[in-house]
């Protein structure tokens, strides 16, 4: 018991929230920050936490509750979702499965730092040690006394009930894995001593904000230690951690997570292609296609430290034998796996927009869609909202024509464009997407459709082009492209749209991105070291209980 008391003492944490009365004004003219957000871990984050904590041999099986997309990002949907009954049923299964592996004979000696005095009985000290250490990594902060005691009691009761220490410990671990304290990232606010009247995240919330932003993972022990020692509250301490994390290979995981979200790759999960029309398309091709784009992006942005805008024009990429077959290019590499490949100068494949992951995702199951592709360029890459189509779309013109068999998409859409109610919006989408018509819905190159030669002329806001490579250059040169990625990634990090008071901050970041030569790691650093990234709006009067300390969490 003495041992447990020691753990409890070290585990205890004081959390200060909203000290004193609610403040209505701010003392200086800095942006006031946004409301606190509470985000549900994504499936990938959940998996990453388990791998980081227990190693890759612990398998995470099961069906996760679907994430939802809000304002263009799943990361913002995460601030709005909860857990449904069937979702919790699944979390419960996943948690018990993980716990059973961790305490199972194959792993217990490596994953549990102590041995019970008697494996058939409860053991306070060993359960306490394991649960305190594991709980800190799962909750992303040390457990309070109450929290640890409650979980040790679960382990003890279950060990007695099942006459087995390890089974009891597994049951207790499972209850941590399905607790809202693990499944949701909660931001705790505290007064900001450097800016009177303002609030910021507490050190552990900062650590999570930083770690999920840069690595798409929970804080590692070093970051938690920095939080514990107060290092994250000084500019230099924060910068030290940010630099360490950006220099780590794990930054790739964070960059991939962001672009997976921004490019909407979750939609591949349910993307259908007609196998009779596109025999080369398969779920394996879809997987490889996403991976190709992510490799192209991380190689350019992280490894080569290149210019963000070049992701739209680069011909350097990576392919598998399967992709080589879709692209109809030779694959020269060791058997299987990935190989670098560069499309020759002048080829219509330039940049990520011409890759299978983009043209196939933004198509119909049986045919390409210049409209969907044009819409995706605007909404996904340039952050421009295309109005929804009028509800009472009238296709009379298409119907009345004597020969309704338009052979190419350009011809079909041309019929549309003569209708003024449709033309307004199609004009801002179709001329972009028509540049990609040389790629069918499965992503393969083609020169004709139904016997007619395909014409890939198009235009993006006055920049005219003749093919996909021209479109790629037009997107590259559009100032909206780098501005878009800045506003997306700030929302991604915050878990919400920046508020009115934060508009200047986003503008500053956009200008800074330009000054940095559009280097992506530099942008990440600018965001992660900004006080704005951790600032929380003062609470509305009466909106929150305002105890200076949580009694249950006091040491």
């Amino acid at each position: 018991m003495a041992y447990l008391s020691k753990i409890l003492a070290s585990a205890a944490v004081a959390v200060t929230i909203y000290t004193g009365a609610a403040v209505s004004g701010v003392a200086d003219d800095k942006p006031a920050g946004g409301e606190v957000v509470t985000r549900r871990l994504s499936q990938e984050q959940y998996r990453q936490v388990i791998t980081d904590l227990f190693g890759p041999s612990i398998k995470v099986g099961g069906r996760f509750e679907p994430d939802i997309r809000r304002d263009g990002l799943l990361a913002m949907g995460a601030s709005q979702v909860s857990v449904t009954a069937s979702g919790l049923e699944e979390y419960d299964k996943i948690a018990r499965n993980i716990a059973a592996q961790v305490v199972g004979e194959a792993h217990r000696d490596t994953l549990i730092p102590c041995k019970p005095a008697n494996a058939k009985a409860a053991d306070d000290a060993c359960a306490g040690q394991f649960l305190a250490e594991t709980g800190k990594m799962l909750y992303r902060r040390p457990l309070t006394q109450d929290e640890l005691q409650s979980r040790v009691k679960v382990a003890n009761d279950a060990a007695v009930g099942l006459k087995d220490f390890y089974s009891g410990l597994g049951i207790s671990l499972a209850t941590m894995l399905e607790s809202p304290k693990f499944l949701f990232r909660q931001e705790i606010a505290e007064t900001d001593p450097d800016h009177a009247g303002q609030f910021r995240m507490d050190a552990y919330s900062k650590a999570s904000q930083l770690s999920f932003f840069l690595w798409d993972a929970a804080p590692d022990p070093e970051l938690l230690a920095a939080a514990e020692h107060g290092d994250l509250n000084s500019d230099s301490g924060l910068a030290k951690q940010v630099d360490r994390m950006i220099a780590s290979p794990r930054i790739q995981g964070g960059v991939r997570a962001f672009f997976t979200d921004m490019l909407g790759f979750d939609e591949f999960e349910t993307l259908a292609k007609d196998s009779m029309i596109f025999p080369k398309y398969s779920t394996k091709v879809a997987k490889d296609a996403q991976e190709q784009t992510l490799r192209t992006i991380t190689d350019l942005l992280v490894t080569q430290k290149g210019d963000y805008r070049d992701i739209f024009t680069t011909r350097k990429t990576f392919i598998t034998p399967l992709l080589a077959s879709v692209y109809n290019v030779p694959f020269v590499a060791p058997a299987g796996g990935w190989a670098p490949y560069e499309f020759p100068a002048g080829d219509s494949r330039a940049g990520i927009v011409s890759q299978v992951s983009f043209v196939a995702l933004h198509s119909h199951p049986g045919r390409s869609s210049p409209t969907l592709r044009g819409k995706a360029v605007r909404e996904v890459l340039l952050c421009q909202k295309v109005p929804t189509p009028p509800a009472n779309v009238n296709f009379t013109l298409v119907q009345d024509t004597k020969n309704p068999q338009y052979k190419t998409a350009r011809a079909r859409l041309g019929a549309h464009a003569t209708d003024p109610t449709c033309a307004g919006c199609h004009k801002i989408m179709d001329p972009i997407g028509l540049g990609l018509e040389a790629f069918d819905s499965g992503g393969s190159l083609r020169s004709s459709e139904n016997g007619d030669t395909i014409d890939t002329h198009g235009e993006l806001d006055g920049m005219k082009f003749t093919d996909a490579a021209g479109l790629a250059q037009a997107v590259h040169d559009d100032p909206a492209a780098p501005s878009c990625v800045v506003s997306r990634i700030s929302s991604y990090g915050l878990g919400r749209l920046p508020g009115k008071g934060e508009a200047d901050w986003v503008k500053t970041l956009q200008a800074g991105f330009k000054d940095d030569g559009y280097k992506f790691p530099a942008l990440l650093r600018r965001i992660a070291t900004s006080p704005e990234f951790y600032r929380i709006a003062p609470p509305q009067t009466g909106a929150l209980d305002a105890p200076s300390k949580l009694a249950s969490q006091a040491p």
Partner: protein
Amino acid sequence: MIPINRTMNRRRVLRGMMGGAAISVGLPFLDCFLDTNGTALASGQALPVVFGTWFWGLGLNPGRWEPAKPGKLETMNVELQPLAPFKDKMNVFSGMKAFLDGKPNGVHFSGVQGMLTGTVPRGMLADKPSVDTLIADVIGTRTRFRSLEVACAGNPQHSQSRRNGAVVNPAEVSPAALYTRIFGPEFTDPNAADFKPDPAVIVRRSALSAVADDRASFEKTLGAADRARLDEYFTSLRGLEQQLDLQMEKPAPLAACTVPGKVDETPVGTEIEVVKTNHKLFAALLAHAVACGQTQVINVAFADATSSLRRAGGTQTHHEFSHEEPVDAQLGYQPTLAWFFNEIMGSFAFFLAQLDGIKEGDKTLLDRTTIMTATDLGYAKLHGLENMPMMTVGSGGGRLKTGLHIPAQGEPTSRVGLTLQQAMGVPVSSWGTDSMQTSKTITEIMA
């Protein structure tokens, strides 16, 4: 609310309810246990009522589904022909519409929200619970699953069952996974001769109270919106505790319960034969699950609202046809659309036949069930929200009259949802928002 920290079983629940312990349960709910028309449980109690929704996208071809006359359903119009075997057990409502009240028509969205939540949202984000969850909160709290959702076209997000805007009950897309979820190792056969509670279940049930205790300290630092989300989490946690409670008690025998054969993994997708195959497997599993007392609320999404169904080798989806196929000058309707609708209504008939095929005394499982259909549009070609096809099938254990066609003149679709909530025992007298708000039930079908 029933206290959740004590062990419950059906008998105790019934005893408690008869004793007036469950004060939040409206009076009509008691009917299901006292209903003398239904076939009783061995204990003398009537089998409980069942509610379900069956959703498909794009409505039907106007003029081809409405019954010719009001009152008794005599002959079915052409697009409802597949449902002819059920005409005495169903009601058809025509002339119902979704009112936008000046809000933009969120295509393939506004209409179904109006029908299922009684509210047409201003944008493309729903913020009200759907009728099935409101009913499940009354009739579904004492079963292993408060509700079961399936989506036949491969996407869990096709589910139309929502507890609020961002909390959508995700649908199962794999029949094999649904089989394991219901009839896997955690299934307790109500008719098994011996019953031995698993000690591990007792331990797990007790351990879950530690998670419930996490609420207080977690909640302290949350804003109001996040508290509501946390409430959802803890409602789900209660559901999980309930499942374990049920596993610790010997269930009442259910004569009609049989365990179906194991279901193997099947391909999923939007090609219509694939969808139909998965729908058939789902329909059989859901019928067995209900017959075995595992749930009283089932929700089927045959496809998404923007119906992405397609024929193998076809370049266009059902949705694209709805806009692009001309109305045939001779026929007066869109023939390819009619083909899709025939397939969809045929599938709905298959679903109903599964419920009707399970005999419970001289009645069938369908007789103690009410299935409400839902769709997104009245006229898909123009995203029209007028004259949306609506049906109910099954009398809900005698709570509804059936075999009727109820024509309306531009009345809100929410009237059907309100009527069904009242029939199922939800204590609600008025439902919906703006012009969708109604306190008028459809008295013609109330038994």
